[in-house]
Every structure is written in structure tokens, then in C-alpha cells.
């Protein structure tokens, strides 16, 4: 591990690595949003009537909603009529095998370091690649299917497993939940669908790689993971986008359902384009991620490393319904230059003996703003429920901000809620000590920051940990003067 980290650090050059654009013919719906566009998307995807109805219901509700303003972020108004809601590489239907995938696309994913050729696969990771609005390739699905695991794009799931999708779509995040979730419910294009049957331990990491490519397009993916009784799955999500002057909107939904004694581990390394040093461009990331531990002893664990996006608005949450269920949230959020992050989690304790752990590490540099916002709620019947939260912030430079805003609500005398938070800067003494040993200031900062984040980093699966460590260094570049 250590060895890899060092070489990775030195491989770093000075800007966003994934800022290139793929020249590919794409098919887009006309700009703007109305019922016709939604019908167009639904028709393109050959969807059943119930799904179109769901979308239209969501859209009509969305028209009555207002964009939320409570988060500690500022941005110019988004013109929802100036966005393409559907962009797909031509060849609309999903390819049957990798040979049918456009070679330009394969090249793109090669450049991103995402393996779509199964023969070149790294240590057993199955990948679903989502390019703009559609899933372009899903690997290893046959192997997984032999164990009854469904791993495909959500569009395919709608066609092939409509009952499952219909049963759970909107069951964790209803379309009325919030402005961005409602928008997603109306226009979502693709995403990943995972079903792990009873008693199955998924033999490899499942992964989706999201890529926004088309200009002026929004990405609205929807991911759904269902872990049936006694099953286990570890799921990874990665994302990048080309470097563009304009801001692009990303409003996704992730819904997770965890049944009796099942466990889901969801890891994200979010590396959307953060905008340039002057704060121009970058992705607006408004995401609703939520899972429900439906059964007894269910466990849901979120791990996120947030380094990208101009704006991050994201609160991966756990509804702990089943008795003894467990929720975890491990987060590193790094902001530099003009990035703004308002992120955290919600732990809703409903069942008895439920427990949750929150570890959040925020690092702000440059002129960025970084907010931890969290809610821990102990319901009336959550006897002996437990929560512990630790939120630490690190400031680098005198022009950035770090904010901590936990909400704690307890309605049960036997429940225990505990929150600790600290804010500090990298001390001059620590920097001097490292530099006295010969390490230059920039490496020293990334070393100290990686140490600060270690509790979270070590929760990431191996494949992601190296990448995440390197991203910390890249994101903080130029933060020490």
C-alpha cells in the first residue's frame, strides 16, 4: 500500500486528468424540459406505461416545487430549459457484447482507466459504464447471472425485471422527496440496477463508472440496489466529466434496499470536474442517496471521497427500520479553489437496538467552502439505539471556510446520541517537522491530509484506496503558497 501511494503521488501532473472530450456522434433530445421531452425519453427507452405515468406525475409535482436554498452554497440560477435531458451515443439499443460497443467509447474508458475488456480485468471488478444518458457496457454479467445476481442498466431492468423495478422504484426516495430528486424522477435516463438474491455473497466488487460527455447536457442517473436476505454486495461508483467552461448539472438518485441480515457497502470516489482555478465551469452535483435497512440485522455502509464538482449537495442516508440494523457513513470531502461542498448524512433510527457511526473529514483550501450537515434522529420506538459521530475539519489557507452543522433529535430516553467535532489547521510545527526531514511543503501537506483522512480511506476497497489517495494530492495542488 505504502509503496503504491508514493509512486502514485509522483505520477501526478498539475490539472484535472479527465478533462478530455470524446468525439462521438450523439443523439440528443431537443433542449428544454416539458411533457413532450419526457414522453420522448420514455419512448426512446421503450418504457411501459406505468413508468411514463410515474415520470409525468413527478414532472407535474416538480413544477410546483422550489429549488432548496438552505444549503451553504451559492450559484447563479440554473436555467432548466437550457439543458439537454437526453444525450446518447448513437446506436440507441444497448450492445449485446463488447464487440458491438463503439471503439471510440472503449478508448474513452481505457483513457479513464476503467476496464471494460473482461480479459484485462483487474482483480475481479464488474463494471457498468454509463456514458451521458445511457449505459454502454456491463461486464461479467453472465458470470454473475449464474448465481442469480442481476447486474445491468436500469433501462434493461425495466424491460427484463419490471416487477422488481416497479416494486421498489421510489420506495426509498419518493418523487416528492426534494426538488432535485423530483426532477430526476421525471427525466432519469440510465443508471445501474443490482439485485442480489437470498443467501448470495456477491463474488466480486460491482462498479458503475459515470461519464458526462455531451455539451450542455445534464446527467440524471438512477441506481437501485436490492440486497435480499442474508446477501452481501460491495458496490463502487466513480465519475468524471470533460473540462468545460459552462456548469453542468448532475442530479442523481440512489436507492438501496437491505433485507434481513443482508449487507451493502457502497463506496464513491467522486471526481467530477471541479471547475478551474478561477471558479469557471464544473459540475453541479445535487444527489439524493438513501438506503433503508428493512430487515433485522441489516447493514448499510456508505463511504465517500468527494474531491470533484463545483458544487456538492449530497447526504447519503440510512433509514434504520429493522431491529439491530446498522448504518455507517465515512466521508472525506476536499474542496479547493472555488469549490463548495455541503455534504453529510442522515441516520434515521426507527427500529430497536439500531446503531450508526458517522466519521466525516472535511478539508478546505483556497477560497472554498466546506460544510458538514448531518441529522441523527432517534424515534420513539428506537429503544437502546446508539449513534456516534466524529466530524473533523482541516483548514488550509486563510480564505476558506469550514462549517459543521449536526442536527440531533432524540425522542427515546434509552437512546444515546453523541457528536464530537473539531476544526483546526495544519500546524506550522507539523509542516516544519516534515520539511526538516526533507519533504517539500506540497508533499508534506498531502501526507498530513492523507493521515487526517486515514480512518475513512481505510474503509475503501483496495482498488479505490490508491486512486483516492492520489486524488487528495491532486485536489490540494497549489493550496500551499
Amino acid at each position: 500500500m505504502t509503496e503504491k501511494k508514493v509512486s502514485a503521488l509522483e505520477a501526478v501532473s498539475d490539472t484535472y486528468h479527465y478533462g478530455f472530450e470524446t468525439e462521438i456522434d450523439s443523439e440528443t433530445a431537443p433542449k428544454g424540459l416539458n411533457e413532450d421531452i419526457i414522453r420522448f425519453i420514455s419512448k426512446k427507452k421503450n418504457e411501459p406505461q406505468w413508468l411514463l405515468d410515474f415520470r409525468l406525475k413527478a414532472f407535474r409535482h416538480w413544477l410546483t416545487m422550489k429549488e432548496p436554498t438552505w444549503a451553504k452554497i451559492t450559484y447563479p440560477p440554473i436555467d432548466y430549459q437550457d439543458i439537454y435531458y437526453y444525450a446518447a451515443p448513437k446506436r440507441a439499443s444497448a450492445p449485446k457484447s463488447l464487440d458491438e460497443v463503439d471503439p471510440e467509447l472503449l478508448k474513452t474508458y481505457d483513457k479513464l482507466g476503467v476496464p471494460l475488456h473482461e480479459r484485462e480485468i483487474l482483480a475481479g471488478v464488474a463494471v457498468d459504464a454509463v456514458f451521458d444518458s445511457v449505459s454502454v457496457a456491463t461486464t461479467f454479467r453472465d458470470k454473475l447471472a449464474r448465481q442469480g445476481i442481476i447486474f445491468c442498466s436500469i433501462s434493461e431492468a425495466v424491460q427484463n425485471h419490471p416487477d422488481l423495478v416497479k416494486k421498489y422504484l421510489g420506495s426509498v426516495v419518493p418523487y416528492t422527496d426534494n426538488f432535485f430528486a423530483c426532477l430526476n424522477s421525471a427525466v432519469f435516463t440510465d443508471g445501474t440496477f443490482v439485485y442480489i438474491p437470498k443467501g448470495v455473497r456477491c463474488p466480486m466488487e460491482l462498479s458503475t463508472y459515470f461519464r458526462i460527455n455531451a455539451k450542455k447536457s445534464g446527467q440524471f442517473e438512477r441506481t437501485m440496489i436490492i440486497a435480499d436476505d442474508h446477501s452481501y454486495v460491495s458496490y463502487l461508483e466513480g465519475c468524471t466529466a470533460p473540462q468545460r467552461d459552462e456548469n453542468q448539472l448532475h442530479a442523481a438518485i440512489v436507492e438501496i434496499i437491505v433485507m434481513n441480515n443482508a449487507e451493502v457497502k457502497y463506496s464513491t470516489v467522486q471526481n467530477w470536474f471541479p471547475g478551474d482555478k478561477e471558479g469557471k465551469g464544473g459540475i453541479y452535483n445535487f444527489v439524493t442517496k438513501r438506503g433503508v435497512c428493512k430487515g433485522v440485522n441489516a447493514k448499510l455502509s456508505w463511504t465517500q471521497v468527494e474531491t470533484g464538482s463545483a458544487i456538492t449537495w449530497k447526504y447519503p442516508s440510512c433509514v434504520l427500520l429493522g431491529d439491530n440494523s446498522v448504518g455507517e457513513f465515512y466521508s472525506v470531502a476536499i474542496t479547493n479553489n472555488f469549490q463548495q461542498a455541503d455534504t453529510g448524512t442522515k441516520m434515521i433510527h426507527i427500529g430497536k437496538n439500531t446503531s450508526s457511526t458517522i466519521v466525516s473529514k472535511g478539508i478546505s483550501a483556497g477560497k472554498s467552502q466546506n460544510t458538514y450537515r448531518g441529522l441523527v434522529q432517534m424515534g420513539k420506538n428506537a429503544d437502546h439505539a446508539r449513534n456516534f459521530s466524529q466530524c473533523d475539519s482541516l483548514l488550509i489557507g486563510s480564505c476558506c471556510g469550514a462549517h459543521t452543522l449536526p442536527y440531533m433529535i432524540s425522542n427515546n430516553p434509552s437512546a444515546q446520541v453523541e457528536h464530537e467535532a473539531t476544526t483546526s489547521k495544519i500546524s506550522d510545527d507539523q509542516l516544519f517537522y516534515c520539511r526538516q526531514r526533507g519533504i517539500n511543503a506540497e508533499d508534506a501537506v498531502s501526507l498530513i491530509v492523507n493521515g487526517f483522512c486515514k480512518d475513512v480511506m481505510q474503509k475503501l476497497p483496495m482498488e479505490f484506496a490508491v486512486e483516492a489517495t492520489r486524488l487528495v494530492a491532486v485536489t490540494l495542488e497549489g493550496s500551499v503558497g
Partner: protein
Amino acid sequence: MSAWLKIKDLCVKVADKPILNDLSLSINAGEVHVIMGPNGCGKSTLSNVLCGNQNYEVTGGFIDFKDKNLLEMNVEERACAGIFLAFQHPVEIPGVSMATFMKYALNARRKAQGKQELDAVSFIKRIKVRAQALGISDEMLKRPVNVGFSGGEKKRLEIFQMAVLEPDFCILDEMDSGLDVDAVKVAGNGVKIMRSEQRSFLVISHNIRFLKEQIQPDKIHVMVHGRIVAQGGMELLDEIDKNGFSAFLKEAVA
């Protein structure tokens, strides 16, 4: 033989207060020098200035090391040029293991010397050999830098870093303070192992027994009010042991 470290007429201010005044000192290759003096005389200021700590403002004089002007170099450049400070109070760096830390430091140095990075196997071998010699367990190397260690363990880890990095010039700032007898011995032993023709030491200490039994220096300097007021050999230790610094203080005032 020309001196390795040459300090001439050095003047240093901290927060506008003069601490070092026209201080001059030379140390040759392979020599071990000791600086003693009453509290607040500027001993720790000198070690910080040698390493390039920017909280200390140099207002006059020069420091050359191996014919290079140290004052023109920043902290890490000096470190890579072979200057090492064993800190009196080593700072904690949570989450960063000692092994990782040494890997960064060693490779930074090698890069500055135009050498290749050490491969993983040679690196681990190098740190393990030195750790064993100082009674440092693998577990201690995995723990974060200076976090949760006793005073003695921290000092031992400072010596360990010195042994791994093999610097040309070592400054030991109160290496023995706050240690029990056994820990002092381990620290002294570490220095003994490290002594060579191609390595000089500047030892700051109050502990006469430690200096006599463990360090056995070539030269003693007495520092008062930011100036060297007396120089000599081991005999100076006996004198200070007997009479303290009072005689030197009077001299400095006069």
C-alpha cells in the same frame, strides 16, 4: 582541515527581540560539539535557525555548510543537504505511519541527490535493520508518527530517523531531557553507533553525566545571551559541574 559548518557573526531576532548576537562557531567533519548554557541563552534558537525555521529572522552574519550558503536554502533543501534536527518536542502527525513518513523523507533526499527511489524491499530492509538496533518494534513503525508514544520512545524514534536518513550533520536538541536512565543510555548508544569521520554532531544538553558518559564530545561551547563566551574540552564540563554558569554570566555582563 577546513570546517564543515561555519557560523560567522550570526545575529537572529525572534518577534523583534534579538536572541543571537554575533555568534561564531566552526565544526569540522567528524567532530562532536556541545553547546551548553543557562535557560533562554539561545541554544534552541540556534538549532532552529540552522534548519531554516522561518519564525526566526536572521539579521546579520552567515552560515556555510560544506561551502554552501545555508541561509539561501529553504527547510527541505537544507534537510536534503544533510542537516538533521532531533527535536526536543517531536510533533504528532496523526494517521501517517512512521514507515510511510520515512519512505517520503528518504526518497525526497535521494531525489535531491539524483539517486533513484529505493524499491520496496530495500527500503523495508533498511528501516528494519535500524529499528532492530534501537529496539524499535515493527508495531511502532506502523503507528502514526509520534502519536501516543512516551517521551523516551519519541526520542528513540528521533534517533531511528537519524539512522535511516544518514545525515551529514546532526543537531540533537535536549535529546536526554525528560528521559529515565535506561532511555538516556539508548539515546547515547544511538549516537555512538552513528558517529563517523563523515558525520558531525552539535549536541545541546544540560546533562553533564550524559555528555561525559555517552557523548564524549570533542569540544564544549558555553553560550550566554546569544554569544559563545567560553570554549574548551572535557575539563570545561567539570568546571560547570562544580560552579554552574555563574562565572560565565558575570563575564557576559562585564
